[in-house]
């Protein structure tokens, strides 16, 4: 195990970025975004990013193929995934877990998504462990270890005997951070950039617990009996169906396939979609199996808390807290869970 002084991190990223594209959390306006690292940029250590780094593996839009038309005739030109190597630096364990969940969707079963697979194979993940939650964090409720690093190539973490971090300045004035390789790719980086690292003998700083907490035992099982329960109509009433919860969610992965046509040529692209939108399940001829907010809202929460669990054995939520921080109607998944737990089940 190694340590690196925080003051060296920008130089370390400069060195990495000379060879590979690096995405890192930097401040832009009042919010934090994953942006391509550029010399002189400033790492934002204190809060998680507004959007998860999902876009780097599963872009908001990507072209699948181009076509040309000539009267009745036409040709298809398939796009090459062409994923360049990239390093995602400083993602948190909630977003790391979301990548493990995206892997289940896109890389398991009979059909592998070649675009996602190409990006995933060419991506190095350097996770930054949390020691202190934000007010909206509840990863531990969903079984995510904020210092677990499961699926990361490298883990960066704070050390036990350092004073509590109060401001970004402490990072700028220099503090030791632990760095541990979890994979061969991680080892390779530690070896190649060894000049930045010292040997290290200190323990990681422990995590102070989340203020937001709920138990999930029996949740999926109970939800299975609550399909027709009145809580879905009750809670969804104030939903504006704006879709922001799905847009900022690190685990939401529903997509649409759309086309852009110009004269005798065009392209087909895949883009993010939202189960909260009214045309999501609307069929030709006008029939919609989920005609109102109630059904859409119910499907979203059941997908997160029951359906994905049935299919893949995990919740499709990592407790990052973005949806409850950004929902304009203050809909909060922990409140939904509370309501589910309180609900009495009579019929179905």
């Amino acid at each position: 195990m190694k340590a690196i002084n925080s003051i060296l991190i920008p130089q370390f990223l400069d060195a990495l970025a000379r060879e590979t594209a690096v995405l890192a959390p930097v401040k832009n306006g009042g919010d934090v975004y994953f942006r391509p690292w550029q010399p002189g940029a400033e790492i934002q250590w204190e809060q998680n990013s507004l959007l998860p780094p999902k876009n780097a593996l599963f872009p908001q839009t990507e072209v699948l193929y181009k076509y040309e038309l000539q009267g009745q005739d036409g040709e298809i030109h398939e796009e090459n995934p062409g994923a360049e190597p990239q390093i995602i630096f400083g993602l948190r364990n909630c977003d790391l877990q979301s990548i493990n969940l995206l892997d289940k969707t896109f890389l398991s079963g009979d059909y592998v998504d070649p675009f996602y697979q190409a990006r995933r194979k060419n991506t190095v993940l350097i996770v930054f462990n949390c020691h202190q939650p934000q007010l909206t964090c509840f990863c531990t409720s969903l079984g995510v270890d904020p210092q677990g690093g499961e699926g990361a190539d490298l883990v960066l973490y704070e050390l036990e005997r350092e004073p509590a971090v109060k401001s970004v300045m402490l990072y700028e004035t220099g503090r030791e951070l632990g760095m541990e390789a979890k994979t061969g790719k991680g080892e390779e980086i530690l070896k190649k950039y060894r000049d930045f690292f010292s040997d290290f003998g200190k323990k990681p700083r422990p995590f102070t617990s989340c203020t937001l907490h709920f138990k999930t035992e029996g949740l999926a099982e109970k939800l299975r009996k609550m399909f027709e329960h009145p809580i879905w109509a009750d809670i969804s009433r104030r939903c504006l169906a704006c879709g922001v919860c799905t847009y900022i969610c690190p685990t939401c992965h529903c997509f649409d396939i759309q086309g852009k046509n110009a004269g005798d040529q065009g392209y087909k692209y895949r883009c993010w979609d939202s189960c909260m939108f009214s045309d999501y399940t609307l069929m030709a001829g006008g029939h919609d199996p989920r005609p109102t907010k109630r059904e859409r809202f119910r499907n979203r929460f059941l997908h997160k808390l029951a359906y994905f669990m049935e299919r893949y054995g995990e919740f499709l939520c990592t407790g990052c807290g973005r949806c409850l921080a950004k929902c304009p109607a203050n809909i909060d998944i922990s409140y939904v869970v509370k309501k589910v737990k309180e609900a009495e089940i009579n019929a179905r």
Partner: protein
Amino acid sequence: MPASAEKIQLVNPLVPEKGKIIKVLRETPDVKTFHVTTAKGKPFVPMPGQLAMLSLFNIGEAMFSVTSQGERHLEFSIKKTGLLTDALHEADEGQTIGIRGPYGNGFPLEMLKGKDLLFIAGGIGLAPVRSLINFCLDRSGDYGRMQVIYGARTPADLCFKEDLFQNWPSQGLEVNVTVDQGDENWSGPVGFVPSYLEELNPEPEGKIVVVCGPPLMIKFTIQSLDKLKFEHKAVVTTLEKRMKCGIGKCGRCNLGSTYVCLDGPVFTLAQLDQMPVEL
């Protein structure tokens, strides 16, 4: 370089193959059957009840059931009902078309073996069932007695008239056809499929029912089958949903944790009884 660009095999299940419409047949005022082939011949060999994504590049893409197949082509019977199907109905022979598949589970052929088969369909719902009827007729030794109950809005809206009134009866299939509303040339039964089914009063013993049609027709047909004491594990239906990927990833066609495109579209009623059903 910490990460090296590994070679990725390029088989994108979301990209269609180039095909061509080689024949267009008019079935009814709003249903046409399209014969589709590719440079290599038949794009794939679907099992009865399986699906394919068809696209007109500048219009859109949607999922259709394969209604029949020849040596070198697949057949799709398609009702004019939206953007893509409107454009398909305008297309002539020779039109380039995108095709990908096959998708879905298809009908449970093993379960049907040795049983009497009752096929119930409404409107364009006969299209997927037809693939199964023809499959079973080609292997009639494997199945018991076969019967079709079919209904459409008017006599003009009956699909596959040649099959209904010539080919199938001549192969020993009992065909019962009803229409919601007759005309001056119609001397057959008039009425909805569920009430016609109750009138015909088929015996549930040793029988598997395959039912497909518009959601409302399916709903009321199931009520009639319940009255006639058919067991839910002996009733098979095939569902439709809006679909984009066809491979269980884009999200929208789920019934609970089940994806209709991947795990369906064919389910027994007993299976559907266990699912949160949004039809």
